[in-house]
């Protein structure tokens, strides 16, 4: 009898597990769609803040399509204007007008310096790069434990706190395989951008590796927009300004 009970309990657990996994993956996809439409354009400002309060600012125009295509164009300051970055799957390039040709870069570099790196600036959907390993509930938030799908992803693991009602992240910790904290990203200041897009307009990040420094990303505009695939190619990088 006891054995039957054990087998019955195990069977219930096994049946429940796939449902749990599906819900967590669905939740992650919902988070992605609540943050951004699948294809959109946006204007952002990146601000690197030093411990003494001094700042350096960069203004970007970004476009994204689907799960693996992102491009960004620098609008300011003058020394960066015209530079662009492109991400196509696992490939990433930087185009500098004075150099005149794109060069390959890595996701862990940072074209702007500061705490944000290229993976943060040219971010893809979380569901495209991470699998959900575990889902916990803490008060009015979910806690998602995410694991990178492959070694090309910038961070091996993420811990994502998600507001239960809004299905939007409030905080993400980015970790190494050894669970060392690389950086923490905070999502703040929810704003209605129109077109049904209500999301954090202010993202702040800090890192124990860069004590006293922080970087901030402010969104001014997010708009659904469809693009041809040819926009996300090396040959088109010099022409991103024409999309504005």
């Amino acid at each position, binding site marked *: 009898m006891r054995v039957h009970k054990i087998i019955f309990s195990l069977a219930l657990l096994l049946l429940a597990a796939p449902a749990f996994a599906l819900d967590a993956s669905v939740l992650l996809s919902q988070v992605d769609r609540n943050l951004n439409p699948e294809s959109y354009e946006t204007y952002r*400002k990146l601000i690197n803040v030093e411990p*003494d309060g001094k700042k350096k*600012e960069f203004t970007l125009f970004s476009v994204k399509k689907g799960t693996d295509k992102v491009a960004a164009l620098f609008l300011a300051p*003058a020394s960066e204007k015209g530079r662009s970055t492109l991400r196509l799957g696992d490939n990433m390039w930087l185009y500098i007008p*004075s150099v*005149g040709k794109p060069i390959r870069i*890595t996701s862990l570099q940072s074209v702007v310096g500061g705490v944000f790196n290229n993976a943060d600036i040219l971010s893809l959907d979380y569901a495209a790069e991470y699998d959900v390993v575990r889902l916990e509930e803490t008060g009015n938030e979910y806690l998602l434990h995410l694991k990178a799908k492959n070694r*090309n992803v910038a961070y091996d693991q993420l811990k994502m706190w998600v507001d239960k009602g809004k299905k939007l992240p409030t905080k993400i910790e980015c970790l190494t395989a050894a669970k060392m904290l690389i950086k923490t990203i905070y999502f703040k200041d929810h704003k209605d951008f129109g077109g049904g897009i209500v999301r954090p307009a202010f993202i702040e990040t800090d890192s124990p590796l860069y004590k006293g420094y922080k970087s901030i990303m402010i969104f001014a*505009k997010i708009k659904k927009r469809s693009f*041809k695939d040819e926009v996300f190619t090396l040959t088109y990088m010099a022409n991103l300004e024409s999309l504005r």
Partner: protein
Amino acid sequence: MRSFIRGCSLVVILLLFLPMAVFADDSYTFNVSEIEKKPYHFGGYVEFRPVLYVLDKDSANYQLQYYNQDRGSTLMEWNGRLQLEGSYEKGMSRLYVKTDTDYRYSSYLGGDERTAIFEGYGTLKPSPSWKMELGRKVLKWGKGYAWNPVNFLDRVKDPNDPDLPMEGYIMATMDYIRSFDGPLKTFSFTPVVFPVYDHINDDFGIKNRLNIAGKVYLLLYDTDLDFIYVADGSRTARMGLDFSRNVTTNLEIHGELAYIRDDRQPFLDANGIVQSKNHDVVSGLLGIRHLTAFDLTTLFEYYHNGMGYSADDMRNYFLFIRKGYQLYSTTGNTKMLTSAQTLTQGGYGRNNPMEDYFYLRLSQKEPFDILYFTPSLTVMFNLNDRSHTVTPEVLYTGITNLELRFRAGFIQGSRDTEFGEKQNDCRFEFRAGYYF
């Protein structure tokens, strides 16, 4: 040397009084007016660059350049540059112009100024898949950093400063782009029509030719691939291919291979007689770029110059110069030196005229957490005669739109070697550049 230090000090003092573009307060704002797109754009770059050369009076190149002047042991040069660019966009069309004014002053040569239109072209973009351009532009083909053997249609860049902007040629180009799913993600085709007539690209090669070229680009299995062909015309036919790929997330490998048919190359034989030979040439480049977790970038390239001169060729050339200098010193006859100058312009005097080189650049971002500070070290090594240059450099970008760079170049090589016979032993350069 004193005037160089005075000049640098003056610039640094002036910069201290520049309004600081970085400001310290807690407000983070982003106004919509900051992102408003205007149909026109105007901007530019201004640079101040003093250079101090420590001359090598016993070198063959010094004797060739300054045979009838005593330059002393140092040469101080003051350089200024102003680049202006503007564009106007309406609908699917766009006009773009970039001018360059270069000013140089030295106590020996006085002042010299040159203004040129580096680029000036019109663009039509009916869709993301199609683009047509007509005017003066730079193509920048190739994946190499210091050298680009496949860049058949641009001026040769300076490997000591590969990122410097260059004057373009007048041409018509088109880009056709297609994207796919699957291993082949991108295909693009770029045909080029390149005229060479009086006053139109007339320094490129044989005049009265309409040259045809093309490039096919593929992103195939996450590898950038280019196939290039230039038909017979102002220069002989040539073809090339290049590639670039990430081996791991922080290691990139790239390469180029160029084949030039029937290239004509002047050379000096052992008897000091100028000959020429026609031969097919193969040049190649292989390089890697690596980034460590602590932001050290290593760039290493090997370059084989199929049009290069051998160590014996260069020895003959330097011997010819020395004989010419001796002839001038004893009789005042400049005939041999004049021939040597023609040879220098014909190929012996270009950057990297010999066959095999390697290039190593180490660049460390913000060591010891010194913000906006990037020291680098560059070595260029001639594998044929073992002469080389070592160039340490520091770059500071802490003030928005301002770049400050100091570099020193040290030349090592015995007599009759490429770098050993350069007219200077070392140089010190300071560059302050401002974008607006």
